[in-house]
């Protein structure tokens, strides 16, 4: 037993380090999970809704998904078709927040690539983004009917992310809702 001790220590250290190597350093745990989502009011971006304000409060009472994106963000190019594919399956509002983007650019982006969003809003100076702890686009949040953040996904969402993270989080949000009623 004793002679194997260095081997055991080596294996334990190698295990620990390889675990550390496989962690994603960009995946910063959000302290906002389980906390109330910031309440904000922002301008709507849709050409037909120009000048209208959007109040996050208006979504209370149902779960919803917030997707933070920008026309200058290259990962959003990959993400956008996935959103287009999934928006009809969500069954809840999908709010698109254009983060630090010019209104023109965001509108052009949506016209060119399709608009999967129920509501599109503009966070022009990124202040609402800071309140949501956004540190890079795209980021996606699932918020339940009480306005609590249930999930935060950093980076582009893929079909797998939808199937394995976002849909289960929405189910959880619905259970939260049923529990309250």
């Amino acid at each position, binding site marked *: 037993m004793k002679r194997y001790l260095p081997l055991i220590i080596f294996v334990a250290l190698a295990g620990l380090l390889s675990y550390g190597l496989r962690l994603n*350093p960009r995946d910063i745990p959000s302290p906002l999970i389980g906390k109330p989502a910031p309440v904000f009011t922002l301008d709507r971006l849709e050409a037909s809704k120009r000048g209208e304000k959007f109040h996050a409060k208006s979504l209370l009472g149902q779960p919803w998904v917030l997707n933070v994106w920008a026309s200058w963000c290259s990962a959003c190019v990959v993400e956008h078709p996935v959103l287009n594919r999934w928006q009809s399956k969500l069954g809840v509002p999908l709010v698109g927040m254009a983060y630090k983007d010019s209104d023109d650019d965001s509108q052009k982006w949506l016209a060119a690539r399709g608009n999967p969003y129920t509501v599109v809003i503009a966070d022009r100076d*990124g202040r609402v983004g*800071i309140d949501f702890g956004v540190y890079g686009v795209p980021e996606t949040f699932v918020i339940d009917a009480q306005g609590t953040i249930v999930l935060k996904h950093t980076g582009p969402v893929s079909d797998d992310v939808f199937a394995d993270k976002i849909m289960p989080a929405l189910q959880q949000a619905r259970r939260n809702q049923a529990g309250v009623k």
Partner: protein
Amino acid sequence: MRNYLAPIFALLLMCLPVAQAKTSPAASNVAVEARLVALSAELRCLVCQNESLASSRAPLAEDLRREVREQISAGKTDRQIIQYLTDRYGDFVTYRPPWNARTLLLWLGPLLLMLLGVGILLHNLRKKDRGDIHADVSGSSTPPDAALPTLAQLQREFEDKKDE
């Protein structure tokens, strides 16, 4: 610390005419900027991760510096500002991790490893003093050296080979 801050402060003063052009005159903001520099050196840029908020040129870092600057001007304490940022970005945003259950291993890990090393060392030294290590070797059935050919034996073998 003061020596280290002086050049940064000087650099900052050089930037002031540009940075402050849109806001108020520089003089009243020197104290604010000094606190901003000191505070943001303690904070991590979340985009670049290994750069401080003070040195980063990432757009988010600029936004966060603006936020910190505004909060300083509004009379918030450093503690309140750091709290504001950790509420949104977690402890990751500070370079000095706080003491809590999650960071216990981080803080105590090096100490534990050192204690382990010293423990093993002392254990082995004590074993050697007692002669246990020596006993291990001599206790085996054949003395280790007996199995090895001596130099004379090797030489004889070599000579034999040469003769053949």
